[in-house]
């Protein structure tokens, strides 16, 4: 009966593919995991779990989104494990031992005669170094730097997103909800930051902050250890952290106003809904209304923004490195490689091509994911999927 065609488009029929089954298992597993802590959780959140599964189906059905997801997962994986997988340490400079290793083309191999002083003893050893992707101006293996640099990028990403947009969202919620003078002040302040082009503001801050941050770090050892471990850096490099963290602070300051604006706009429209008035009527505290009622309803577009911004932050940070701000060798950083490469262009093309390719892939991955998320978060997508799935398996569906 449903297969009758007419003026309507043919209904496609969706089977449960293997990916769907995998995602189902994963989500069920996750639910059970939480069920270990909160006994009743599975039962009470059944519809929520179902929504998650539908979202997963939507992802599975969109190849670009799936590609994006895979790239993002690989990026996170390398971000965490990269520094340990890198064949050569990031602070080993072969150029000290053999000048030809500087800007070596991909696929070349060189002989190194290393003399180093370690703990008061001179050690000698010889070794071959093979450059799969070429070397930079210090002779470092680009593959290793790409792997180690993923950690830098990932940490920057996570922490900037954790702080910047969060700040912006909170301010936007408050501003949109209360309106009046509060709204005006917050919006004016936001405007002031927005009026300044993001890149220029980031440059200004990156030029200004390193000294102060370095002083702070030098004064507090716990901060030093924390940051060093986070970025997988040798304690020797502690004094180079100032510049890196300056970029971080700069990007946080540049990033929050956009979210404040968007959140405020959404809050303004959302708060006119009846349920908000109802919540107020029953005397819920403002905090609850904002975070448990309004926020989940407006989070959709914001979540998309966040996903795209993971990529955007990498791009901006690479841009800052190009201008000479940001991480300085020996700290491994993708943007810094391209900076070196741009000065050698087009002779040492591998210094631009490979880091560039990596950056493009990662940012592309996040953008694809963000795109897909936009579709997924639209309830109509999920509903249509649900509808089509139900239609197919008539008797007893697999999904819960």
């Amino acid at each position, binding site marked *: 009966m449903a297969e009758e065609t007419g003026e309507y488009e043919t209904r496609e029929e969706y089977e449960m593919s293997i990916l769907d089954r995998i995602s189902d298992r994963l989500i069920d597993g996750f639910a059970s995991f939480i069920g270990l802590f909160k006994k009743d959780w599975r039962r009470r959140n059944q519809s929520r779990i179902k929504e998650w599964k539908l979202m997963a189906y939507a992802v599975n059905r969109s190849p670009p989104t799936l590609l994006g997801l895979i790239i993002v997962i690989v990026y996170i994986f390398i971000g965490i494990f990269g520094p340990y997988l890198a064949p050569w340490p990031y602070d080993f400079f072969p150029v000290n031992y053999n000048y030809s290793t500087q800007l070596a083309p991909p696929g070349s191999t060189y002989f190194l005669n290393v003399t180093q002083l370690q703990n008061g003893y001179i050690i000698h050893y010889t070794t071959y170094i093979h450059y799969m992707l070429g070397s930079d101006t210090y002779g470092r293996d680009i593959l290793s730097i790409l792997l180690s640099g993923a950690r830098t990028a990932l940490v920057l990403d996570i922490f900037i997103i954790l702080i910047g947009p969060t700040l912006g969202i909170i301010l936007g919620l408050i501003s949109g909800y209360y309106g009046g003078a509060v709204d005006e002040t917050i919006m004016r302040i936001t405007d002031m930051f927005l*009026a*300044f082009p993001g890149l220029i503001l980031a440059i200004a801050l990156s030029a200004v902050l390193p000294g102060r941050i370095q002083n702070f770090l030098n004064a507090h050892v716990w901060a030093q250890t924390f940051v060093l471990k986070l970025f997988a850096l040798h304690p020797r490099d502690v004094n180079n952290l100032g510049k890196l963290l300056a970029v971080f602070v700069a990007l946080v300051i540049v990033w929050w106003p956009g979210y404040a604006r968007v959140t405020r706009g959404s809050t303004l429209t959302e708060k006119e809904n009846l349920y908000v008035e109802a919540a107020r009527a029953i005397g819920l505290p403002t905090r609850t209304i904002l975070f448990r009622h309004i926020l989940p309803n407006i989070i959709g577009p914001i979540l998309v923004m966040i996903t795209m911004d993971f990529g955007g932050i990498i791009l901006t940070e690479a841009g800052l490195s190009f*201008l000479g701000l940001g991480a300085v060798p020996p700290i491994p950083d993708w943007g810094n490689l*391209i900076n070196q490469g741009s000065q050698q262009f*087009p002779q040492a093309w591998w210094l631009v091509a490979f880091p560039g390719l990596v950056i*493009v892939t990662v940012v592309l991955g996040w953008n694809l994911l963000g795109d897909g998320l936009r579709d997924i978060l639209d309830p109509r997508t999920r509903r249509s999927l649900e509808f089509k799935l139900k239609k197919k398996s008539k008797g007893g569906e697999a999904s819960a």
Partner: protein
Amino acid sequence: MAGLGKFLIRRGLTFIPTLIGVTLIVFIIAYVIPANPVRAWAGGEKASQAAIEMIKKEYHLDQPWYDQYWFLVKGLFTNSLLDPLNQEPVFNNIGNRFIVTFQLALFAFFFVILIGLPLGIISALKRNSATDMTLRIIALIFISTPIYVIAYLFIWLFFIHWNATTLAGIPPGPPHTITHIPVIDDILTLDWSNFVQQVERFWLPGFTLGIAAAGVLMRFTRNSFLEAYSRDSTLFLKAKGVPKSRLYRHVLKNALVPVITILALQFGGLLAGTPITETIFNLPGIGLYALQAIMYLDFPALIGVTFLYAIVFVTANLIADILYVIIDPRVRL
């Protein structure tokens, strides 16, 4: 539209505090740095103590911060404030460089509209087809690539390989200047040889800058178009049996409303200067000037640049809002 007048006045009133706020922020950031820029202004390592003292007095650097701020602002607007790095009045510097940036923005904008709009519409019309997918992926790739990678690639291709552009300096404008913007003046005075020279110089940086923005516009246009298409009004027209061309025209009109506001904002963004493009293509524009000012803690230049940015930002937003109001009769102030 009586509301428009009041709207403008309201916006105008909030413009002033924004302006002051922005410049104040920048000034405080620059002021807070524990560095004495005068040494750099006075000749670097070879600066003499006497010269440092003299310059300090000249720029009121031994006065409290509010005195300095007022001195800079006053000097900027009476055109008596000299940029310590090249002894030119800051206003003149900014004016000259803004022209370059404006021209670059024009070229970039041209490409943005030329590429972004049609491709966005095509992508929307053929939604979910192979064309659509390809276009979206290509757009995403361009958005995801750092601009200097694109720039170097293009320079290698178009300048070294194909000799299709020039990179030397900025060609002078035509002899008769009306708007002071060379390209526009060329068109107005029909000076074609100069026009060709300007195009030769600016098309590649404009293209590089425009491509990423075109990608954004393309996606936005596509979404907007689809959204307008799925509205009830379109359904109604379809039901009425209106021919496809008229249908699409209707949809387009509705779709373009948010697009135009985005375009206004994008142009404002382009005007704010893009230091990276300007560095690579050697265009002495506002972005480079701001970069230099930050590096050398050139307070006079920083204040001037900040004012410019604030004006550009507010104007762009204002125009976007006004356009929105004019085009979409549903929006009331």
